[in-house]
């Protein structure tokens, strides 16, 4: 069961049992002093967390058990499901809360019945014994090709997110008011060569807010960065709860519907000019935080300032990027029936100028006041 070596889908989240797994004993049956940690497995938890793989617990214990293990491990779990629910239900809530798919999860439990229950209910999950897990750090599924600063802090970022969500549910007022209330800061700036590893990581990891529907290679991203015909833009996100770092990026094609690196901007034109955004990708941590809406608004206004009359975003429709389509629809983008990009993606577009007067379109989305754009730096 253990080493399904043929399947090397990267694991994004490991869900650990506590009793007789992360702890050498049973939390509630050890009298006044909780049992000590299993040092080998806690080492694996720290090692994998350092690689940006989220660590979570699902345990039939009170929440204090998870807090106790967090103290032993010296890190925050991205999610902790403590209670007496069936393990598949706990894993389902963790997957939904963190935005990871079943095939991106591993589950470690000493109890054969719990393992069997998860394997039957969630066949995509990689189910491991504690003995398997002790070796897991050397497996390809647990060895992401790039590990960035953002990745190493991922567990902490999810813990901050959980505190933010609690504040949001206590807040009465609109989402926009909440974003201002918690000091949201979105910084849009030109990408630098040093951002390349993080951009590549975003292309591998983002699904819900991704227009391309598939990873872009590091070489392709590098050539977009150095291309005179493209502007690669990064988005950083922070608020009073914490700094999420580089959460998203977009590529603006400076020539009409052209994705060829090195192409130049046409000098004069008579027909309406369309600019294209061949790639938008954003971490799902930014969902609900006004960040993608801000980026789309800024792209529209930048393209308009550069003289474009239309902005088009080719989008591959997947069963996971409905959130991206919602943001497109919210920013006024529509697909024209039958219009496709050369690679088969559906072309969503919106007018930037009024066809008669040439003035900025009246319904152009506004860039919120918590956004810092390149000109303001």
């Amino acid at each position, binding site marked *: 069961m253990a080493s399904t070596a043929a399947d090397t889908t990267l694991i994004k989240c490991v869900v650990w049992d506590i009793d007789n797994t992360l702890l050498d004993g049973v939390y509630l049956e050890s009298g006044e002093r909780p049992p000590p940690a299993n040092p080998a497995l806690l080492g694996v938890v720290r090692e994998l967390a350092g690689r940006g793989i989220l660590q979570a617990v699902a345990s039939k214990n009170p929440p204090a058990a998870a807090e106790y293990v967090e103290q032993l491990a010296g890190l925050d779990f991205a999610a902790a499901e403590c209670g007496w629910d069936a393990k598949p239900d706990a894993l389902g809530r963790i997957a939904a809360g963190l935005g990871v798919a079943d095939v991106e999860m591993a589950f470690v439990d000493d109890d054969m019945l719990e393992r069997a229950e998860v394997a039957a209910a969630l066949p995509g999950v990689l189910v491991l014994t504690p003995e398997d897990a002790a070796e897991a750090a050397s497996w390809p599924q647990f060895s992401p090709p790039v590990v960035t600063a953002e990745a190493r802090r991922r567990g902490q970022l999810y813990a901050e997110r959980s505190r933010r969500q609690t504040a*949001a*549910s206590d*807040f*009465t*007022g*609109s*989402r*926009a008011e909440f974003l201002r209330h918690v000091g949201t800061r979105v910084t849009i700036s030109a990408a630098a060569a040093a951002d390349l590893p993080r951009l590549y990581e975003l292309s591998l990891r983002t699904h*819900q*807010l991704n227009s391309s529907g598939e990873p872009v290679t590091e070489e392709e991203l590098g050539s977009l960065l150095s291309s005179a015909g493209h502007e690669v833009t990064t988005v950083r996100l922070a608020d009073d709860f914490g700094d999420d770092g580089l959460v998203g990026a977009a590529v603006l094609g400076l020539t009409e519907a052209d994705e060829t690196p090195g192409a130049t901007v046409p000098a004069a034109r008579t027909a309406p000019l369309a600019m294209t955004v061949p790639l938008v990708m954003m971490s799902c941590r930014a*969902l*609900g935080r*006004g960040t*993608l*809406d801000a980026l789309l608004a800024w792209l529209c206004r930048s393209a308009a300032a550069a003289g474009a009359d239309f902005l088009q975003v080719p989008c591959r*429709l997947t069963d996971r990027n*409905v*959130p*991206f*389509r*919602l*943001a497109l*629809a*919210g920013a006024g983008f*529509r*697909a024209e029936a039958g219009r496709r990009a050369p690679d088969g993606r*559906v072309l969503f577009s919106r007018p930037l100028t009024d066809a008669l007067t040439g003035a900025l379109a009246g319904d152009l*989305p506004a860039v919120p006041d918590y956004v810092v754009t390149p000109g303001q730096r």
Partner: protein
Amino acid sequence: MTATADQVAGALRDLLAEVTGRDELRTIPAATPLFGGGVGLDSLAGTLLLRQVQRRYGVDVAAADLNLDSLETLATLAAFIAARI
């Protein structure tokens, strides 16, 4: 709106209040735009709303409506769902 669409619109008001945490949405007029100045639906709240719609009515709005034009107002979404149940 038809009687069914009226009922769906009523249920959608409650769903909108739940996914956004804003109780005042329980009383919005049917013509309220869902995006922008009206409800201000963002991609997170929109995704949660569509998930609840699918669970309750078995209508997969994202699969059936490429442009999500049905999300223009509360009334258009209610009519879209009512026509498919």
